[in-house]
């Protein structure tokens, strides 16, 4: 057991830390469009420095970073409070799918503009009636004159109004078992047959969108991974979404914890034994998230697959962030009821953490069935 970083990992981290100190884009401007442009410029700056698509193989414009470097990258970004780059979905989900399953032409066409941020990607998976049971989705794609005609509705589509491309999973064969009849497409968002409507959340923000798709066209060469293989391709995307995020999310929570301690001091409750117990418990859980994530990375490096602790970070992160924001608002007391309090926004936003990217209940099912070997529900 050795938890120290190697000299090359340390120098990588120090180099990145120094680069971030020089190049941090500053506070995000208010206004949705301004904020997005800010993040797009940040994406470009990351690309120019070779930090975009960090985990991608070098031949596709990435850096071929090791798992440890990826975790350090996430930790340092969180530590510096750097914004998310604009094309995070393209880099974390779309690009890796094209790299794994795409043809040479597809790689040539799509990968570079993802990294530069020139073309923004969004994800069309969830539907109003297909959330956790994603494979039951109903959006239909029918082949006609060499192209696909798509009709259906998608929901929770981040950046749909800014996106050029949508990772779309649609049903191409309704007569086979549900997992077998799906196909993964890259759909051009710039057509009138795709209508985007903002979806306002309990925070009052339209962070997500709904997509209404009425006979949209997708050329046949935009199928990724072959017709009928959409489920397998989509699963790659979801696994990419979860892998390696633990260390970064723990680093983000460490920052939030510092904010919380600062709040406790400002409000004169840093001596309150009950508050101290609750902050200490959170400190412990944030530390365990970090440690579980690093143990999970070791497991993947040694055995090629995630260990039992690898299924836990997303679940832990959601619970911790919810508990942390609840405590902050408790400390604020009456002032926590103000709509413009940043902590109150965080309190509300955290309620999505146990739903987005796999509900806690689905994650528990996965742990119960695949890690503990309990009977399968289906």
């Amino acid at each position, binding site marked *: 057991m050795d938890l120290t970083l190697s000299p090359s990992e340390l120098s990588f981290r120090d180099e990145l830390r120094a680069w971030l100190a020089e190049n941090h884009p500053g506070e995000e401007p208010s206004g949705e469009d301004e904020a997005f442009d800010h993040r797009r410029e940040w994406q470009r700056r990351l690309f120019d420095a070779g930090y975009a698509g960090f985990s991608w193989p070098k031949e596709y414009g990435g850096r071929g970073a090791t798992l440890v470097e990826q975790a350090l990258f996430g930790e340092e970004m969180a530590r510096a409070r750097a914004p998310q780059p604009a094309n995070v979905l393209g880099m974390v989900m779309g690009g890796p799918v094209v790299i794994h399953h795409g043809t040479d032409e597809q790689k040539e066409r799509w990968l570079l503009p993802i990294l530069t941020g020139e073309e923004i990607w969004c994800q069309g998976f969830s539907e109003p009636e297909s959330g956790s049971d994603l494979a039951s989705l109903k959006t239909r794609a029918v082949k006609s004159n060499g192209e696909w005609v798509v009709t259906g509705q998608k929901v929770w589509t981040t950046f749909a109004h800014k996106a050029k491309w949508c990772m779309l999973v649609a049903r191409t064969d309704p007569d086979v078992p549900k997992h077998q009849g799906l196909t993964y497409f890259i759909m051009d968002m710039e057509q009138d047959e795709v209508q985007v409507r903002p979806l306002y959340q309990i925070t009052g923000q339209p962070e997500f969108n709904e997509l209404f798709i009425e006979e949209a066209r997708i050329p046949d060469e935009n199928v990724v991974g072959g017709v009928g293989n959409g489920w397998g391709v989509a699963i790659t995307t979801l696994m990419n979404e979860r892998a390696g995020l633990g260390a970064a999310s723990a680093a983000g929570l460490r920052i939030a914890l510092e904010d919380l301690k600062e709040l406790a001091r400002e409000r004169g409750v840093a001596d309150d034994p009950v508050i101290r117990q609750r902050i200490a418990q959170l400190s412990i859980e944030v530390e*365990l998230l970090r440690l579980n994530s690093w143990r999970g990375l070791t497991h993947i490096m040694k055995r090629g697959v995630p260990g039992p602790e690898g299924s836990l970070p997303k679940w832990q992160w959601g619970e911790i962030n919810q508990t942390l924001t609840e405590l902050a608002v408790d400390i604020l007391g009456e002032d926590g009821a103000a709509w413009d309090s940043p902590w109150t926004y965080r309190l509300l936003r955290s309620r999505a953490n146990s739903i987005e990217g796999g509900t806690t209940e689905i994650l528990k099912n996965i742990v119960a069935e695949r890690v503990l070997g309990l009977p399968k529900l289906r």
Partner: protein
Amino acid sequence: MNFDFTDDQQAIKRTAKDLLADRFKPERVRELAEAKAYDDDAWKEMCELGWAGIFIDEAHGGQELGTVELIILLEELGYALAPVPFFSNTAAGLAIQVAGSDEQRERWLPSLASGELRGTVGVVKGGEARLVPDAAEADLIVLAGDDGAVVAERSAAEVEAFDALDATRRFGRVRADGGEQLPGDVQPALDRICVALAAENVGVAQRAMEMAVDYARERKQFDRPIGFYQAVSHRCAQMLLEVEGSRSAAYYAAWCADAEPDSLAQAASMAKAYASDAGWRVCTSSLQVHGGIGFTWEHDLHFFLKRAKTNALMFGSAAEHRERVAGLSGLASDLSVA
């Protein structure tokens, strides 16, 4: 970066697991617990194998391995729920190794490593140490208090043995006026002792979780294994979360003891606080999965549950360790303990 055991450490783990599974079958643990006895032959065997001195330097008859190797043994001893005086003897060895003078180490460590003498440690509050493992059987007792630690021979101490919740261990209350001061700072030893208890609770909780999962696969109600129902399966998933969290915390704290001593205090208190709570919660949750049978004396689960709770109550409660974490993590306060 390798947050896992080395090949040598894996070998220690396998050897310990196999030996303990053979020596401490459930019926044997029960027999010893009900007789309020230890397995002296198994203890002798462990001493001969070098377990008792695993962390003690070679010059004093030990193996000179680290805290990581020590907690590998403790996790397996917890998993097996082995009724042996390993923990108490280890605690005394840690205290003397960390805080003793050269002369004291020379005098005591070789006998503790060989099993010739037995030791223990108690934490004194209000003039008395109230939950001292193996107090009545130990040859020497280290008492840690506000003014550091003293070591006393048992004959010089007032020991009152009592029946504790955990029937797989003996306990006593100890008062001693005299004793010989250990000149060094005993706190790093207490931290290692807390890590040892946390590691034991990892093993205890792992076993209680496995019992729950096995039972949930076999037991049928409403024509299905109860593990099919999410009310049961999600309970089991929660157990895994807490077992793995305890494990990460204990392993990390043990590594800090060996390689990054400045981080030990906080890591040890985090491990002790979390593994104390998790040990109890996992065992009680396992009892709930077992339903009525889990509440019977004839089922083995209660021995694990009682060990988990008793470990939680020794060497500082979870709340006391959380208070220490708060102080160490930048919330300064006059209230901080320890």
